[in-house]
């Protein structure tokens, strides 16, 4: 069968046809559960390890250092310009693994479904997870599904965990940032957060802003081919570049200086942020990375990154300093300095 789920084309899923929406029984461990797995998840995720349907996936590995990560996805709305919760859940965990320089290999997926969720929506989500995993060369090898009463969930929550192998000689972690290092961003910032907000808040912009959700391990592999001296990698998701750099500054007990004029921001995102009174430096990304690298490898890295489709707009945006340890400051457009603090909660649209 094709990768696109088409309920009309199915031969035997009588129970699924009987229930166009998720019912409590889909999480009950009986026939309905089994049929959901057989007819919805297995075709979408399709791989040999999963097809064995054991209680656990059995995996062979060659290597001695694993990067292991988990993340839960609760995004609303479930579908947004350029993606949905499914591909976000796959790419997000791939990126967490890739930020250790590892090659992601296997993912698990846990679903918490709300009674009443349409099977068509779930099918589309599962399908895009499968597609995202295949595109990234990773396998979804084990999973779980639970159903909660209507009103006790938000359609679907997804947890993905995963791991990958770290190549020999690669040592990437936040505490490695050193004074003198250079901060690189792989592309335009703030896109995902604005894409979500544009649909969540019912904002009508003239241009549709699509999420930047993408798996970054390919770009990381290219970067490691240039130099294994990369000190830190980070994907600036929630809290944006501001939070990610603050976390690094605190972990490594160094200061970071960012140059506002060098931060790449797409014109539509810039305009939306102006309209909403938001600062793109705090807005979430899902397909961008920050790299902190010794100055001597910065230029060759940048050159190679710009050849990769996910790095065409890569830029040097700052440097690490021994001054103001634990703090991030930005040089403003006018050449003054301001402190870039972590936010306390969500960034809120300002009234004035």
């Amino acid at each position, binding site marked *: 069968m094709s990768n696109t789920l088409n309920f009309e084309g199915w031969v035997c899923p009588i129970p699924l046809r009987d229930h166009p929406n998720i019912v409590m029984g889909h999480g009950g461990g009986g026939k309905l559960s089994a049929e959901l797995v057989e007819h919805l998840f297995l075709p979408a995720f399709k791989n040999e390890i999963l097809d064995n349907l054991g209680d656990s996936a059995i995996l062979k590995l060659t290597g001695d250092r694993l990067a292991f990560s988990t993340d839960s996805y609760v995004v609303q709305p479930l579908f947004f310009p350029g993606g949905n919760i499914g591909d976000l859940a796959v790419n997000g965990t791939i990126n967490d693994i890739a930020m250790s320089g590892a090659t992601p290999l296997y993912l698990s997926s846990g679903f918490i479904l709300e009674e009443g969720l349409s099977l068509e929506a779930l099918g589309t989500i599962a399908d895009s997870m499968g597609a995202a995993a295949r595109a990234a060369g990773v396998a979804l090898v084990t999973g779980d599904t639970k159903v909660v009463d209507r009103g006790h969930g938000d359609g679907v929550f997804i947890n993905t965990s995963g791991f990958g192998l770290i190549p020999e000689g690669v040592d990437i972690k936040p505490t490695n940032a050193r004074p003198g290092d250079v901060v690189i961003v792989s592309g335009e910032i703030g896109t995902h957060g604005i894409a979500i907000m544009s649909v969540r*808040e*019912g*904002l009508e912009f003239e241009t549709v802003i699509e999420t930047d959700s993408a798996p970054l391990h390919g770009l990381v592999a290219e970067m490691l081919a240039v130099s294994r001296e990369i000190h830190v990698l980070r994907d600036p998701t929630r809290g944006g570049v501001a939070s990610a750099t603050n976390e690094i500054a605190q972990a490594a007990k160094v200061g970071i*200086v960012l140059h506002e*004029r060098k931060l790449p921001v797409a*014109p539509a995102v*810039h*305009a939306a942020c*102006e309209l*909403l009174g938001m*600062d793109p430096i705090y807005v979430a990304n899902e397909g961008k990375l920050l790299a902190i690298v010794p100055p001597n490898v910065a230029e060759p890295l940048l050159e190679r990154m710009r050849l990769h489709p996910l790095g065409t707009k890569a830029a040097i945006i700052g440097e690490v300093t*021994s*001054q*103001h340890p634990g*703090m991030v*400051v930005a040089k*403003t*457009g*006018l*050449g*003054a*300095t*301001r*402190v870039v*603090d972590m936010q*306390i*909660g969500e960034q*809120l*649209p*300002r*009234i*004035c």
Partner: protein
Amino acid sequence: MKYLDEFRNPDLAEKLLEDIHRLAKQPWAIMEVCGGQTHSIIRNGIDQLLPDTIELIHGPGCPVCVTPLEMIDKALAIAAQPGVIFCSFGDMLRVPGSEKDLFRIKSEGGDVRIVYSPLDAVKIARENPEREVVFFGIGFETTAPANAMAVFQAKQQGLTNFSMLVSHVLVPPAIAAIMESPTSRVQGFLAAGHVCSVMGYWEYDPLVEKYQIPIVITGFEPLDVLEGIRMTVRQLEEGRAEVENAYPRSVKYEGNEPAQKMLADIFQVTDRTWRGIGEIPRSGWKLSDAYRDFDAEIKYAVSDIRTQESALCRSGEVLQGLIKPNQCAAFGKECTPRKPLGATMVSSEGACAAYFQYGRFTALDQPVIELESA
């Protein structure tokens, strides 16, 4: 971005700064009235680039900062009622009332929603006829026309489930109150450009006349703010006290007359308490008698809620430029951005929050980069 990037041009900013440095011969204290201007000053670091002799005093023009504690408590009481959908601009959600904030009410089951326009709240009311929808109508003259329009539309559409908790404040009475204060140090004002887009600047003629103080209508982008400062310093150095317009691309002398007409119909002038400052006579708007059915204070009988401000918090003196934030005993101790006592510590451009950040930075032992003038 067209009409924005031009007003952030660093080369032109450099020229304006050179001009200001050349003009400023004596020390001057200038108050920017509007929170949007404070935001621009902090965000761009404009205060660091000015001559040491020019002091910017952050004025009481952040609507979030001056909305009185009592009004926040009224909002919380209404938002907690079952069946109510309470709509607000985003940055009001984190402002602490005496015990909670709107985020807390939401977590406890209140239906609190962020909207971008009061007209969205009217739409929610129309779509949810079985629910009561309340909009938190705060702000200066800038946000007033949209709030007035929301009430006007609700009445036209015959909506009985829409009301507004109004806490509008007005700029000219606040300027007068600051000038009446015997301890005021302010020698010139940057007036709020967007307020003047609506109201014009005819209201400032009597103030200039009475207090002999320069008032310059100023915009919000870095070049706008610098131009406003330049014109104010020039007036001060030349011994003039006039109303000047440094924001002519947006502001006309007479303002937006249709908007003013609607405001006069829907609102009426009232005494208003300003957080941290106290009551200023005739310094706010409430709904006029013709629209009293839409007044949430009456509808939910919350007029009796009376709240005292924190005894520790001296944000009123900060807002009037009488003390620096770090001269308050609670600063950085009982009061931090995470646990603010007063609204000037809440919003990132509030004078106390801004000071907290920079204090952290400049207090470091190491020499710091380019912050000598901060």
